[in-house]
């Protein structure tokens, strides 16, 4: 019922497992003391509007960052929408969340799923025809190098758009958000072996796709 009323992304349900959940190593939500977080979530769940506001403000920077990472350069204009939708979905789902420490991971998961859906809608407009010359922009930190790195990230994201969503989600969390496998498992609310399997299958699929698309391969595997 909740999922219907708040337009929850497919596959995302309010977390019910007792897992602790730091979504990102440097996130503001994860840097909050566990006791503080639990207290805040409990007050928010009980209908304390000030606590709802404080909790959302605590999590919002991570949500916006995750939306921007997954949406990438081409989807930049839509990243704010994705973040907004995700925060609204989170605020409406709060009463049904049972594990306070899972809230920020849950928010990240909603965001990644929403961003993946938005990316797939945009995918047809993505133009990847202007790959840089191999070997260009090798200087550390120079603008061209940054541009190439962003282009590589975009190339990978484009390939992830074509994967089954569970595999894409695991790879976006692992690569775009930089989460380790244990954290991906917590965020995706799945056993770590399942996550390993999703990453393995996803990567194999990406490499098969790369074999057929040399311009993307030049970007992602320049030395091969």
């Amino acid at each position, binding site marked *: 019922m909740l999922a219907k*009323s*708040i337009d929850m992304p497919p596959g995302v349900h309010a977390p019910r497992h007792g897992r602790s959940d730091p979504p990102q190593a440097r996130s503001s939500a994860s840097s909050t003391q566990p006791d503080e977080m639990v207290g805040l979530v409990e007050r*928010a769940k009980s*209908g*304390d*509007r*000030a606590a*709802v*506001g404080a909790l*959302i*403000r605590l999590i*919002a*920077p991570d949500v*916006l*960052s995750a939306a*921007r*990472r997954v*949406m*990438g350069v081409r989807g*930049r*204009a*839509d990243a*704010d*929408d994705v*973040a*907004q*939708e995700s*925060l*609204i979905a*989170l*605020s*409406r789902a*709060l*009463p049904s969340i049972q594990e306070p420490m899972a809230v920020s991971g849950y928010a990240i998961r909603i965001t990644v799923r929403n961003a993946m859906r*938005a990316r797939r*809608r945009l995918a047809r407009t993505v133009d990847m025809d*202007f790959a840089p010359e191999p070997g260009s922009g090798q200087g550390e930190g120079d*603008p*061209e190098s*940054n*541009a190439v*790195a*962003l*282009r*590589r*990230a975009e190339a*990978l994201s484009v390939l992830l758009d074509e994967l089954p969503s569970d595999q894409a989600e695991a*790879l976006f969390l*692992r*690569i*775009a*958000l*930089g989460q380790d*496998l244990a954290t991906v498992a917590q965020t995706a609310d799945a056993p770590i072996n399942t996550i390993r399997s999703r*990453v393995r*299958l*996803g*990567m194999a699929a990406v*490499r098969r796709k790369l074999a057929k698309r040399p311009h993307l391969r030049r970007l*992602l595997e320049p030395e091969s």
Partner: protein
Amino acid sequence: MTEIDHADEWAQQLEGAYRELGAPRDGDEALLERMSGAAEAASPAAASASIAGTLTLVAIAAVVLGGAVMVFGPEPEPEPSAVVSTVASSPATEVKPSVPERPAAPAVAPTIEAEPKAERELVPEVPTPASESATEDSASPAPPAVARTHSRSKRMETAAELLTRANAERRGGRYAVALGLYRRLQRQFPTTREAATSHMAMGRLYLTRTDEPRRAVKAFEEYLRRNPSGSLAPEAAAGIARAHRKLGDSAAERKAWEHLLARFPDSVYLQEATRALER
């Protein structure tokens, strides 16, 4: 190397790029505040507080009326606070926040700063458990007030809501509807960030969906005029160049790429611009 190792390697290699994508930008503070305000307003807690506030007002009105009647009778007037807590059947701590948060009606066109307040005030249109419970309260004196709040929320659609609705129409492929909503947003809230963003969205629609590059140029130029250093300014500049390319105006395209390189030398469009200029 296993696939897991390969993923680890890419995660390491692309860490900087993804970090850059997700990095905070100028104006994020206001953006996050606006987003958080809208999300807070959409929460069941906010809806409950709104209903509780309405009940409080009704209770206060009842007390005032009761007091007027009591002038003609011998019984002492009850303490308003006691009556409020009894009639509203809600803790005073939940009732209090809703009253000061009601902004006064804006005397001038809403500004960017005014938006979050307006958003907090509105009752979400999507039914939530809390709004369903409001309907269940039909036996109490509250429903007329709640109904008025709902109709007011439709009259006072905020800039953020208009933009969200327009974006949803755009994503749903209803481009004419989306364009109409963007124009309405620009008319009703000309000074807001949302209106500025809508020019960018219109430019992209004209360029990639409706094949109207001349209009796309105008929309992107309007975005740049309003946001010369906006977060989407490089995209707008690149959009102008691409629109000129689509129009077959190579001189204008060239000029646009040169402008982009001069204005945004470290943008991700560096290579596209360089290649276009080498042709």
